[in-house]
């Protein structure tokens, strides 16, 4: 079962400073948002997938497994575009393209989380100038995604045992049926959040203004090299997109 995204491995990505990885991830996201051509999106998706395997030693299968929860959105995207865009074949291509963009953005986030420990991630955010509380909030949020996923499954199992079936009925009926899962999920989440805040306070969270850190992070040579490469790649992407007009198709008008 999946409790956190982090995977303990000895890889190049794991050895980088979290700041490098945060900047790298943001740059990759910007690059993905620059383009919308289906071929370019496919290439970028595969590139990130391979980079995750080669640089982060995260198996392709593992990466795809993490993306599985996005599947409904992907299907919806691919199905909706041809409905609202004409000619339909072009709509389908755009749908596929945006679905791939979504998957690539997801993949980038997952690779950041799979190769960076939570405490290092917070440290990275703080060193980049974010307040500690914000860094903590972000990482707690990320930390609880898998937990909520498991909880939701558990609740669905409990309701299935009471003869509940989501598959039956039209979309309105289905939405109403979802309340059997959403209400217990929200109640349990609020309860967890409340308990977490008490746990934080009992450990004197916020007691002193200045926090100290047991493990500090340090930029090494490989980080600077990686950063230069990242910025060069991003620069190339911007150049391709804006000066050469590669990889972008006008959708409207």
């Amino acid at each position, binding site marked *: *079962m999946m409790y956190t995204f982090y995977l303990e491995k000895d890889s190049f990505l794991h050895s980088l400073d979290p700041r490098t990885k945060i900047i790298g991830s943001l740059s990759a996201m910007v690059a993905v948002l620059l383009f919308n051509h289906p071929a370019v999106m496919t290439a970028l998706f595969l590139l990130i997938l391979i980079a995750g395997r080669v640089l982060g030693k995260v198996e392709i299968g593992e990466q795809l497994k993490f993306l599985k929860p996005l599947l409904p959105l992907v299907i919806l995207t691919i199905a909706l575009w041809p409905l609202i865009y004409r000619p339909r074949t072009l709509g389908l291509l755009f749908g596929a393209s945006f679905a791939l963009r979504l998957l690539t953005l997801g993949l980038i986030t997952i690779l950041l989380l799979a190769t960076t420990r939570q405490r290092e991630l917070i440290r990275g955010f703080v060193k980049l100038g974010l307040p500690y509380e914000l860094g903590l909030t972000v990482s707690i949020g990320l930390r609880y995604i898998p937990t909520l996923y498991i*909880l939701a499954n*558990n*609740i669905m*199992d*409990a*309701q*299935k*045992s*009471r*003869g*509940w*079936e989501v598959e039956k009925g039209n979309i309105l009926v289905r939405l109403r049926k979802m*309340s*059997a*899962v*959403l*209400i*217990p999920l929200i*109640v*349990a989440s609020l309860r967890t959040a409340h308990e977490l805040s008490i746990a934080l306070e009992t450990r004197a969270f916020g007691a002193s203004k200045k926090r100290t850190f047991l493990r500090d992070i340090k930029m090494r040579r490989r980080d600077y090299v990686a950063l230069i490469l990242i910025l060069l790649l991003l620069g190339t992407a911007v150049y391709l997109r804006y000066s050469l007009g590669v990889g972008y198709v006008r959708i409207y008008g």
Partner: protein
Amino acid sequence: MIEVRNLHFAYDGREVLKGIDFAMGRELVALVGPNGSGKTTFAKHLNGLLKPVKGKVLVDGMDTKEHTVAELSRVVGYVFQNPEHMFFEETVFDEVAFGPRNLGIEGEELRKRVEWALKAVNMKGYESRSPYSLSGGEKQRLAIACILAMKPKYLILDEPTTGLDARSERSVVNVLKSLREMGHGILLITHDMGLVLELAERVVLIHGGEKVFDGPVTDFFSLPLTNYGLSKPELLNLAEETGVGFVRTVEELVGALEVKLR
């Protein structure tokens, strides 16, 4: 009859159940084993929440692979460990009615079932309360009523007394006893050996994904339980030390001792 044949199951390639054979009818079976031994995974196969990787699970002849959980819920009821994971209605009445409604029961029959289920768990008069306003023991009993209202022949209860105070625990135990008298087959997952001693007719011990014991409760307590992370109730130790042998309750022990001393 619930029949399990050579059940194998794996999570992400890790084998959790390694070939379990099991059968139960209308009896009270305690399912015990240390944390992570595969008890819950096993139990979730009995109402089709999990489908076997290899092997077969038959519920009154129905293969769980060919039926949905909703269909199987008419025969096998599963009471989850945390009652709050199922509550979402505004009143106790609607909460209990949710299951039968899903089975297509309406009107007078529905009202009767809810009333009957609430009475069975000693909660008559709670109909218009909010499920979230109840105490721990009441929540647990309500959870049982929710499943009971669907009139399943078999009930699976996952640690129904964990975290309850003594009085609430008694209230749940009494419900279990009366369900047994009503003729339900009950599979009780628990760590409480006192409860096993008091209630179980038969015990199944799972350890490391394998069934290591399946037999009457008397034989179970002569196993070297500490090897499985379990321990014998003090009552049984006392009975053995005083040469009485097997007893289930304090009253039985006192009775046997009185006979002995006379």
